[in-house]
C-alpha cells in the first residue's frame, strides 16, 4: 500500500479507515447509493464511517485502469489497480457488483486484459464492463474485447440488466468515431435503447453507464458524446436517471432535472481539468500525490425521497 502520511489522521498509526482514506484519491472507486431513485456518490471514507447504517443496495464503479500504462504519470498502473481492489475488499458493506466504465487496458493487449481480469477477480464481485477506446485497439478493432467481455451484449457491446429494482444500461460510445467529432453511439444503438426502455415504468430508477461522458464536458478535448442528447431524450420521462462515465480521469458532476451526471476517477493516472493544460494527456503530479488523484466510486440506492448516494474515494487522501 501507499504511504499513509497523506491522510489527515495520525500518520504513525494507519487504521483500516485511515488506510482506506488514503486510497480515496488514487484509484479506488465510487460507492453509489440510489435514494428514492436519485443517486448519490459517497466517498469510500464516508461509506466506511457509516458502519451502522446499511444501505439497501449499492454497487461500485471503477474506471480507466489502463493496465499496461507505464509512463511517468504512473509507472505502475497495475499496482494502483491492485490498491483499488484492496480498498474494495475492505468495504464493510459489500457492493452487489462492480461496473467498469472502460479503458480496462492501455493498448488492448491480451496480457493487459489478463492482468486486469486477474486482479479484478480478486474483488469476488460480479463485474460489468463497457469498453473505452483503449480497449478496441486490437487489429480487428474490438473483436478481442467482445470475445472477452461481450457475452450477451449487442452490437459493439451494449446491454442492459435489472438489479435491486434499478434498470442498468451499458452503452458503447467509442466506436466508429467521426473526424472532428466526439463520442458516438450511433443509430443502431439508439434504436436499441429506445426499445429497451419502452416497457419500463417511469418510476423505475435508471442507471446509464458508458466510457466517454454522455454530456458535453469539454468538446475542445473531445469530452462529450455527439449524439448523447438523443440518448438522454429517451430517458427524460424517468424520475431518476444516473449517468456514470469515465474517460476524463477526474470527478465532474452535475444535475440537470432528474438526471445526475458523474464521471469517475481513474485508477491509473489523472488528467488535467478541462482547458487547464495544453492537452488532455496524462498529468504528472508531484511524487506522493498521485493517489489523491486516483479513486473509485460507490453508489447506494436508498428507497424514499433521497437521491442515489455516490461516494468518491481516492486511493490516498
Amino acid at each position, binding site marked *: 500500500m501507499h504511504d499513509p502520511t497523506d491522510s489527515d489522521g495520525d500518520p504513525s498509526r494507519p487504521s483500516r479507515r485511515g488506510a482506506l482514506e488514503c486510497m480515496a484519491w488514487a484509484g479506488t472507486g465510487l460507492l453509489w447509493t440510489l435514494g428514492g431513485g436519485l443517486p448519490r456518490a459517497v466517498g469510500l471514507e464516508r461509506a466506511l464511517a457509516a458502519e451502522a447504517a446499511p444501505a439497501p443496495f449499492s454497487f461500485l464503479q471503477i474506471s480507466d485502469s489502463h493496465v499496461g500504462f507505464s509512463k511517468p504519470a504512473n509507472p505502475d498502473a497495475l499496482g494502483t489497480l491492485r490498491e483499488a481492489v484492496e480498498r474494495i475488499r475492505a468495504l464493510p458493506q459489500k457492493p452487489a457488483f462492480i461496473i467498469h466504465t472502460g479503458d480496462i487496458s492501455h493498448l488492448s493487449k491480451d496480457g493487459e486484459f489478463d492482468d486486469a481480469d486477474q486482479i479484478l477477480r480478486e474483488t469476488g464481485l460480479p463485474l460489468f464492463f463497457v469498453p473505452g477506446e483503449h480497449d478496441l*485497439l486490437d*487489429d480487428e478493432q474490438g473483436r478481442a474485447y467482445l470475445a472477452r467481455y461481450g457475452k450477451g451484449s449487442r452490437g459493439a457491446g451494449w446491454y442492459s440488466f435489472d438489479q435491486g429494482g434499478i434498470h442498468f444500461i451499458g452503452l458503447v460510445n467509442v466506436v466508429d*468515431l467521426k473526424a472532428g467529432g466526439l463520442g458516438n453511439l450511433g443509430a443502431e444503438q439508439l434504436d436499441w435503447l429506445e426499445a429497451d426502455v419502452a416497457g419500463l415504468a417511469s418510476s423505475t430508477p435508471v442507471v446509464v453507464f458508458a466510457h466517454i461522458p454522455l454530456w458535453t464536458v469539454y468538446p475542445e478535448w473531445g469530452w462529450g458524446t455527439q449524439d448523447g442528447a438523443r440518448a438522454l431524450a429517451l430517458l427524460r420521462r424517468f424520475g431518476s436517471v444516473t449517468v456514470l462515465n469515465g474517460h476524463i480521469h477526474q470527478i465532474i458532476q452535475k444535475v440537470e432535472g432528474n438526471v445526475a451526471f458523474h464521471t469517475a476517477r481513474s485508477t491509473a493516472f489523472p488528467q488535467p481539468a478541462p482547458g487547464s493544460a495544453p492537452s488532455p*494527456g496524462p498529468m504528472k503530479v508531484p511524487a506522493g500525490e498521485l493517489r489523491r488523484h486516483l479513486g473509485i466510486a460507490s453508489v447506494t440506492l436508498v428507497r424514499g425521497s433521497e437521491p442515489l448516494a455516490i461516494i468518491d474515494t481516492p486511493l490516498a487522501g
Partner: protein
Amino acid sequence: MDASSPSPRRRGRCRFAVAVTAQILALAPMEAPAAEPADAGKPVVIRIDNFTFGPETVTVAPGTTVTWINGDDIPHTVVSQSRIFRSKTLDTDDRYTFTFDAPGEYPYFCSLHPHMTGKVVVKDPAG
C-alpha cells in the same frame, strides 16, 4: 525533417490517383505552412504532440513520403477520412509512413481522439 533515405514506395498507390482532383488546391487553408509543395520528393515529418497534428496541414509534391511520429504518452492513430490509409495504433515514439502519389487533398484524423484532425495536400510543383 528527415531528409535521408529515399521514400519507400508502397503498393497500390495508383488506384487512388483519380479520387480527388487538383482543382480545389488553391483553396488550401492559410495555416498551410507552404502554399507550394516543398522540395519534390523530400520526406516530410508530422509530429503528434499534445493531441495535435503539427503542422495541421502540409502541402507536398506527388511521390512525397510523409511520416507521423507520436510524441504523446497516449496512443494515437492516423486514419484517412476516405479510408485511403490507416495506421496501426501508434504508442509513444511509434511512427507511420505513407507515400502520396496522386494529387489531391487527404484529410485525416485520430480514430481514438477524433477532435484531432489534419490534412495532407498533394500538389504538382508546377501548380
